[in-house]
Structures are given as C-alpha cells and as structure tokens.
C-alpha cells in the first residue's frame, strides 16, 4: 500500500492506453457513427425531396388533367357548333333545292297544262266543227267560222 515505481508504470500504461484506444477504437467508431448519421440525414432529406417532387408532380398532373378536360370540352363544343352549322346549311340547301324542284315541277305542270289545253282546244275545235257540221248538216266554212268557234272555246275554258 505504498506509492512506488508501479505508479510510474501505471501512468505509462494508462496514457499509452488512452492514445491507442483513441486511435484504434474511438476515432474509427466515431467516424463510422458520424458518417451513418450523415447518411441517414441525407436519406431522410432525399425522401422529403422525393415526397415534395411527387406532390408537385401530382399537382401538375391534376392541372394538366383539368386543362385537358377543358380543352376536350371546347373541342366538343366547337364540333357540335360546326355540326349544327353544317346541318343547318344542309337543311337550308335541301329546302332551297326542294323549293326549286317544286317550282320547276309547277312550271312543268303549268307548261304541260297549257300544252294540253292547246291540244284540247284544237281537238275540241275540230270536234265542235265536226259536231256542228253534223248538226247543221251543212258545210260550214271551216275557215270562216274557225275564229268564232275558237273564241267560244277559249272563253268557255277560261270561264
């Protein structure tokens, strides 16, 4: 229980141990721990950044979807408008055409009627002539009375 040379020896052992343990145990372990801490922090930061990027991307997607939907609606609306226009113009054209055809037909019919009337008139005139010839039993000067007969027929038809 006395202080002696052991004391000196112990100081040497102790200080040597401090130096060796610092170099071989504490420093490498601490470096490993610090680098791990850094790595984990970086990983967490990267995860955060990833989450943020994903949120931004989701917002972007949503915005683009809305824009696309609007655009689609616009396109549909303009297409509908255009279709309506086309249909209307087609209808108008068809109506015009129909009225034209009707007009032409009417004209045709009128012309036909005139023609038929003329034919009938001449027919009736000759028939009347024949009938009158028969009734009168006398020859009627066709050339003399033609104007008279024709006037009657025309007036009668017109009536």
């Amino acid at each position, binding site marked *: *229980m006395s202080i*002696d040379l*052991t*004391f000196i020896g112990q100081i040497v*052992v*102790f200080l040597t141990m401090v130096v060796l*343990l610092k170099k071989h*145990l504490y420093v490498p372990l601490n470096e490993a721990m610090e680098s*791990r801490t850094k*790595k984990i922090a970086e990983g967490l930061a990267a995860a955060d950044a990833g989450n943020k990027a994903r949120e931004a991307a989701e917002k972007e997607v949503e915005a683009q979807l809305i824009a696309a939907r609007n655009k689609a609606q616009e396109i549909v609306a303009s297409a509908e408008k255009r279709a309506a226009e086309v249909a209307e113009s087609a209808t108008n054209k068809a109506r015009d055409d129909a009225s034209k055809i009707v007009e032409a037909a009417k004209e045709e019919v009128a012309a036909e009627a005139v023609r038929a009337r003329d034919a009938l008139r001449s027919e009736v005139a000759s028939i009347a002539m024949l009938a009158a010839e028969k009734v009168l039993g006398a020859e009627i000067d066709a050339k003399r009375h033609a104007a008279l007969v024709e006037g009657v027929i025309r007036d009668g038809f017109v009536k």
Partner: protein
Amino acid sequence: MADNSIASHLQYWTYVVDESNPFMQIHLDTMVVTLFVATLMVGFSLWLKGKIVAGAPVGAQNGAESLVGFINDTVNDNFPVKNPLIAPLALTIFVFIFLVNTLDVLPAYLLGNVAHLFGIHHFRPVPTNDLNLPAAMGVSVFLLVLYYEFKLKPVHFCKELLMEPFTSLVPGFLKPVVMPINLILKLVEEVAKPLSLSFRLFGNMFAGEVIFLLIASLLLGGGPIAVGAGFFVGLGWSFFHLFIGLLQAFIFMILTVVYLSIAHQPVEH
C-alpha cells in the same frame, strides 16, 4: 505454501529494485494484470477496427457504439468547447476501471492460488486495490487539468490562485497579506481533486476485497452452517461489488470530465 491469514493476502508480488529506498520497487501483480487488461482492450479495438462498417452495425460494434455514444453524450453535456481528447480519455477510464473492478468478482483466492502454482507467494488480482493505479490515473487527470488551465487561460488561473477567495473581502492594505493564504487554500483545493479521485476508487475496491477475504475466512473456518451462510453472503456481496465497480468506474469518468470541463470554462468578466 503461504498461510491463509487475511494480511498475507493483502501483500503484493513485489520486485525490489533498491532495498534502501521504498519507492524503488514494483508491484508485478498490478503491472501484469493491468497490462493483460490493457492488451485485451487494445486487442479488441484492433479486432473491431478491421470490421467497422458505416452501414448497419452488428454484434460487437453495436455494443462499442452504444458505449461510445453514451460517453459522447456525457462529455458533450459537460463541455462548453470541443476537445477531441476528452471523450477517448473518458472512454478509456470508464472501460478500463470497470474491467479491472470486475476482476474482483473472481473467487478471492483463485488467482492467488494459481500464482502459488508458479511459485509466487503473494498475488493481488485486482489492480484497483493497489493505490498506485488509482493514483496514477488521478494524477494523470490532474496533470491534464493543470495543462489545460495553463494553456487556455494562464493569466486568469494564476490570478485565481492568488486572489481567490479572500482578496475581494478584505480592505486594500490587507490584500497582499491574504495572498499566501489564498494560495495555500487554492492549492489544497486543487490537490484534493486527484487525491479524492484516487482514494475514492482505491478505498471502495480495497474495502470490497477485504470483505471478500473476511467472508472467505468465515466460510473456511466454521462448520456447514457457516459454509452455507458464507456462500450466500459471498454471492450477494459479489453482485453488490460488481455494481460498486461499475459505479466507481462511472464516478471516476464523470469527475474526470467535470474537472477537465472546469478547466475549459471560458473566463467570465
């Protein structure tokens, strides 16, 4: 064969360099066990150093890391500034004292009897029971404290030695008179640090060992009842002593950190 009296178990395996000078001798048992433990620790670090990974730690690295983390927390809580030497110092103190103290739970006569086989008459297995080891560590810490005091704030420290605590309390003409008193008080205060540090550890461990020896002598001396009682008492004391060893290692470590942190405190104006 040595006799079994307790006193004989408290003798060191000594190599005497110079008979006339009591300082010139060396306790071989203390040195051998200390070197053995130190070699174990350094060997463990060298072994672990090769397989340290920065990724997920496994096995021994887990344990070592939690220990280093604990020491780092303790040091960072106490230290106002960064000093890369403090944490390794605290780590060494804690682990080394704990390992050496733990040797004390080996059966009291075991290592001594092993040593007897090799013709060594006296062998003390636990180096912390030898005042030389706690004193060496305490003085080393004290020298470090003085070194940092003088390195970081030499003027302030010298002023403190001469001026504290009385100078501000006495009138001007008495100030030179109280200077030597201040110096003596301050020196006592400073020297008390390594003394209390080393004697606390030494006293605890020495007393623990003596109690082991007392229990053993009871156990060997009486009948079967004494043997049974001695066994359980010895077992209980072993657990308690293990705890004391851990506690003393922690106290030595934390006081070292505190003393050094006082030396590192920035000067207040």
